[in-house]
């Protein structure tokens, strides 16, 4: 076993890049490093509560590309023999019999699963407050939200004083929102680019596993590991594997940036808009060109998104009935009574709301006007983006319309007001295009996010652009 040449190395080392270099050089005693990381994690947990489960078992082969790098995983992603609940009471104690494909890849490359991060129940939320276990607190202000639904992932990324990368997931903005609220970098890949096998579904036609980290390099590096075709996921895209860190070497000279005016409109904090414009100007100074455009379908994205999402979600959630796994009751009464009891007792308020809305949207007599109509609106939204990307490499906008909200403010929001907070992230998520959120600056000590979007499979352009800004 290699003894750390510098005993304090673990305390000082914060960046993933440095960790990888030193680990490769054999400078790090991984087990010692990881036990220190676990100590630190416990402390962070006390303060900010990013985790539902912390994995205290340091075992595995920590070599290959990751050398035991601590990786936190959103709780909706299955980890073999580590409790996986998707943030819901209905899956309390659930031990997946298999690893999600992305987790299998991470383990194969020698990553250490640090724990399972907090989230809104099944991803149902914008602020990570619809939580059955813990509500993560924003490291910039513990009275404020980390954003959702991958709130725990954003929280631990911002709070970690050690090298770490978070695996997160987005359906309608669940990577961008926490990245923006916690001042971190969040990459939501193209739909189908990272296998969904082992992801506990929210809305299968929009769910995407992605990455939250402190630096663009970290994001590109981890994305290279988890991306790729998976025969176990029928919606997985057949594309060659790539090292996305190479896009950091490119520059933005000549790049065309579209600035959709709908993303700067009503309801968007002007201070955030201003910071975003500064970043766009920064890109211009680096040789990019920008132009304002209009994406008029944006307005319809929220209803269409929610209708599709809850339609799919309400079918996904039907399987939780106390029979094979998860929360249950004594077997009493007939199946209808038994199922209703288990479900009513263990689903949270927002989950129930989405089940009701979803069941409604696909009911005979309504599904044409809701579900099928929404699928057609999705087509129009995709077409609108496709049209824009004929002309532009990247679209730039604010990540979130607001700064991290205080918990008491969130509690006052009506459900529809809450849904409207997703206005800037919904359309690209529905269209399945890749997007990256990165820090645009601070307002009163609170982080604001810049959102970059690109055409399907053009993650490389996002990494180049984000790298240039960083």
């Amino acid at each position, binding site marked *: 076993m290699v003894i750390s040449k510098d005993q304090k190395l673990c305390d000082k080392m914060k960046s993933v890049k440095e960790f990888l270099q030193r680990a490769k050089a054999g400078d790090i005693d991984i087990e010692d490093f990881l036990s220190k990381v676990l100590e630190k994690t416990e402390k962070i947990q006390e303060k900010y509560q990013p985790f539902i489960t912390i994995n205290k078992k340091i075992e595995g082969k920590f070599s290959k590309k990751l050398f035991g790098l601590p990786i936190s995983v959103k709780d909706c992603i299955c980890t073999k023999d580590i409790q996986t609940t998707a943030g819901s009471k209905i899956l309390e104690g659930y031990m997946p019999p298999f690893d999600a494909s992305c987790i299998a890849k991470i383990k194969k490359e020698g990553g250490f699963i640090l724990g399972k991060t907090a989230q809104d129940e099944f991803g149902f939320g914008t602020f990570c407050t619809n939580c059955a276990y813990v509500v993560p607190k924003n490291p910039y202000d513990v009275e404020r939200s980390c954003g959702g639904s991958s709130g725990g992932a954003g929280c631990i990324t911002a709070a970690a004083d050690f090298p770490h990368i978070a695996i997160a997931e987005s359906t309608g903005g669940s990577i961008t929102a926490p990245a923006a609220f916690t001042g971190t970098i969040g990459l939501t890949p193209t739909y*189908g680019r990272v296998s969904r096998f082992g992801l506990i579904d929210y809305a299968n036609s929009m769910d995407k596993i992605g990455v939250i980290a402190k630096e663009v390099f970290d994001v590109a590096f981890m994305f290279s590991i988890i991306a790729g075709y998976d025969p176990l996921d*029928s919606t997985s895209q057949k594309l060659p594997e790539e090292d996305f860190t190479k896009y950091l070497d490119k520059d933005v000279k000549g790049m065309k940036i579209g600035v959709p005016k709908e993303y700067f409109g009503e309801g968007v904090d002007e201070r955030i808009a201003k910071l975003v414009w500064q970043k766009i100007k920064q890109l211009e100074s680096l040789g990019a060109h920008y132009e304002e455009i209009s994406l008029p379908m944006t307005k319809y994205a929220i209803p269409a998104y929610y*209708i599709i999402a809850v339609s799919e979600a309400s079918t996904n959630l039907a399987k939780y009935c106390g029979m094979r796994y998860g929360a249950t009751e004594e077997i009493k009464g007939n*199946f209808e*009574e038994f199922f209703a009891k288990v479900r009513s007792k263990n689903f949270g308020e927002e989950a129930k709301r989405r089940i*009701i809305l979803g069941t409604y949207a696909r009911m005979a007599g309504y599904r044409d006007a809701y579900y099928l109509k929404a699928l057609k609106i999705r087509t129009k939204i995709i077409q609108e983006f496709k049209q824009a990307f004929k002309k532009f490499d990247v679209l730039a906008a604010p990540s979130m319309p607001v700064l991290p909200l205080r918990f008491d403010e969130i509690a006052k929001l009506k459900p529809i007001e809450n849904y409207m907070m997703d206005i800037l992230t919904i359309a690209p998520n529905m269209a399945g295009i890749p997007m990256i959120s990165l820090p645009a600056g601070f307002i009163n000590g609170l982080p604001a996010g810049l959102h970059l979007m690109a055409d399907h499979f053009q993650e490389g352009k996002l990494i180049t652009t984000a790298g240039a800004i960083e």
Partner: protein
Amino acid sequence: MICMTDYWKIDEKLVNHICAAAKLELTEDEKKKYLKQLEEILQVFKEIDEVDTSSVEPSFHPIKIKNNWREDEEKKYEWDPLGNTRHKEDGYFKGPKIV
């Protein structure tokens, strides 16, 4: 089938029907609360009626995905399928009766 005149209108009877279909048991207060929230949500969602989709095909995925299948080859999955439940008997899952 439930008779409806305006598909953006939801009432208590419909909420009851939905809850029965979705196997959710709500208290009267919960029902009232959800009904009110659903009404507010639907008022906004109604906007999609403005979009002309008459000549538009639905998108089932963001990207068209076709013909991804597997061959008919057997692979035995080694595991304990009953490992996550306490409701079991002689290798069977145990569940509630039908009637």
